[in-house]
């Protein structure tokens, strides 16, 4: 095992482990924090894979923005803080679907791992530093992939507007007559 592999393995363990904790912990805020750990480990993975720009973007956006958003959401929805004990059928955190979900997840894992390992038995990644830097990636982004990039900005605009519209309380339901005419 090369050094890269060892480091990657460790980072992978951390990532998967913290992911497991995200989905099993009884404390909501801890879940968000474990999510941060997972994202961070993944950023490390990206670094090992020489994708620096992606790694930093990951940290910036995921750790910086997404998790914050999630924390805001937890607070705004009065989620239970602190350890939530299990309460059977109406547990606020885990649904009764747990065991079916576990089965499906295990099956998914088994299938995916098996297929992928069998498929890529002889594939070796050649790690060369600098391939994922800002310059090559930016050049690629603004030359080859500029059109999707523009579309993406439109998407962001749409998401922004949508989020605002959905969250405003002073925009109510449409009137009854409008609805009736719309239906007829």
């Amino acid at each position, binding site marked *: 095992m090369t050094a890269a592999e060892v480091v990657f393995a460790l980072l992978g363990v951390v990532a998967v482990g913290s992911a497991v904790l995200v989905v099993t912990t009884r404390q909501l805020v801890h879940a968000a924090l474990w999510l941060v750990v997972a994202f961070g480990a993944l950023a490390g993975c990206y670094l090992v894979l020489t994708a620096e720009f992606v790694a930093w973007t990951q940290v910036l956006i995921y750790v910086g923005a997404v998790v914050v958003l999630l924390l805001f959401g937890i607070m705004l929805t009065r989620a239970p803080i602190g350890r939530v004990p299990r309460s059977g059928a109406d547990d606020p955190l885990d*649904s009764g*679907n747990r065991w*079916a*979900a576990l*089965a*499906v997840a295990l*099956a*998914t894992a088994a*299938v995916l791992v*098996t*297929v992928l390992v069998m498929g890529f038995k002889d594939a070796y990644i050649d790690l060369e530093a600098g391939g994922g830097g800002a310059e090559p990636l930016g050049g690629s982004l603004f030359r080859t992939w500029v059109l999707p990039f523009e579309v993406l900005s439109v998407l962001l605009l749409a998401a922004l507007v949508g989020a605002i519209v959905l969250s405003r309380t002073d925009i109510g339901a449409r009137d009854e007559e409008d609805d009736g005419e719309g239906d007829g």
Partner: protein
Amino acid sequence: MITLAALATLLPFLAAFAGMLLGPWTSRLLGAAPPAAQAFGTADGAGRSGAGGPEAGELSKTSAEDTETPGTAGTSPEPEKTSAEAPTMPLPVSGPEPAAPARYAAGDSALRGLPRNGPALIACLPMAVATVLALIVAVAVWRHPGVRTGTLTLIPTGTIDIALGLRVDGLAALVALMVCGVALAVQLYSVAYMAEDRRYSSYAAFISLFTAAMLLVVYSGDLLVLYVGWEVMGVCSYFLIGHHWQERANSRAAVKAFLITRLGDVGFLIGIFVLGVGAGTFSIGGVLERLPDLPQGTVTAATLLLLAGVAGKSAQFPLHTWLPDAMAGPTPVSALIHAATMVAAGIYVVARLYAAFAASAAALTVLGVLAVISMLGSALAALAQDDLKRVLAYSTISQLACMAAGLAVGAPAAAIFHLVAHGAFKALLFLAAGSVIFVTGSGLLRRHGGLRRAMPVTFWAMTIGYAALVGLPPVSGFFSKDAIVGAAWHAAAHGERPAHLPGGVAWLICLALLATVAVTAAYATRAWLMTFFGEPRAAFPAREAPPLMTWPVAALAVPAALLGFFGLGAPELRPHPLSALLSLLAAAAGAVAVYLVWNRDPAADPAGGLGPLRRVFERGFYLDEVYAALVVRPVRAAARAVLAVDRRGIDAAVVGVAGRSRRAGGLLRRTQTGDVQTYLTGLLAGVVVIAVGVVVLL
């Protein structure tokens, strides 16, 4: 000759359809006034179904004893509502002279209105022409005796072909002439009798169709063509008996007649098949030719099966119960169908195929036994009936049984002679009874009385008819009945009978005939006395019937009186002294007994002298009840069972499929929980399974 016979058959057939389709149009064409608005059925209820209603009402055993429709005794010319189930209060016996009912005026003006009466002309004119044709055919056959056949075409059936043809011989010509004559009289009579009936045109058309069918039976040269005519007669009889179908009892009587005769017709058809297949041909001439070559079993089977149809159509025991109830139809229908033609068809067929019957001991015995039971039983039943038409109906059964007895003892000529005479005098009696019912407004004997002076023509005609029925010389009945009694006596005492007839049966027939003659005289005298003598028992305007009704009656009285002398040419049709004396003595005994009982109290019913037996006789020995218990109730129960199986088994299965599908759907519906996580779980599980499958298989 064959052409004339075919024309005679075809004319009434065409008249039937013309009358059905074009009747009212022809009236308008001829300038008749449009018919006045008549309350549907109620105006009929005043007149004819006043005759049909009370009789029908009496037939349904649930109705009250007094079933006469109120108001028909003439209290009001326009009764607003009538019903067969009338209140039971009796009408006044004597009182002020009631006003004439509307039907009198209609009947009287029927003759004057005849040239403008479309359906009547369509009915009567072709019938008259057909009668003339039948007369020509009869004269031709009389002058040059022999069998003439003619075939129109041969219908290929794959095995035995059916020949559409006619066969005219002396028997056919004579019976056809009788049929045509009676039918013509009935058609003329009906013009007045049914003058107020709204559905007269369909009635006349059915009578024409019926006549055509009977002529087809008479002239037919092929067994299956005969069967066609036979069945058409059955259907027309159903329609005609149920003419006043507004009263439920009438349509029930029609259905009863149809079903019972149909029952016999099944055996008849199978008998035809057996005979035809055995002989290799359905034509009557062919069958009679090949008869000696047929195995005995075939002949016996065929004749016994044919006897089933004969028993049904000719109303012999045990298929006779329809005939008294069939009096629910209008009286002219009874005269035509149940006196002269349809019921005679059975006897006619036996006479036509007599060689086959004579060859089978079983057939002759069965025929003889049935005849004996029928003739005595129905004569006794006639003695106790209150309704004049039912007396005549039972009398018909009895006389047909006499004809059957004549056939059984080997005297087909005598039987046919009696058939023709009976056709004349029984039609006469029925039509005259119709006149009486028309005048008095009721068919019940206890409402008649004292009509001798008011209805002279009817009185004398009916006297001749009753005399013929009893067998008094010199009217035709004496000769014809004596021919049969003489043949029976010779068969029993001197052994001059068909080889296959056991001697015991011949003696039985002979004795039964003599007993029947006595009882016949009894009931005939009773009816004659109660109708025409004594004081009127109910209030009605006493007058003669309209001319268009009395003339056919008078016309029929002539052959009823004189027909006997035509038979003197043949030795077997001449009276035999010993048998004539015996039957006259028996008749005298019966008549005198009844006269004595009547004389004690002219206002009462002589049948009261029977005591407790009267009820038994009147109910026809409770045979209807027996059939109801033995046949009707099990069949109804079976029908209900089938209905239950259909509803609970088959329908439930079909409906249950829907219910079960619903439930299965309901079960499937449980997967739609609304919980998105459940959906996703299922989805992903499915994807994993598919992925595994793909990986494993590929």
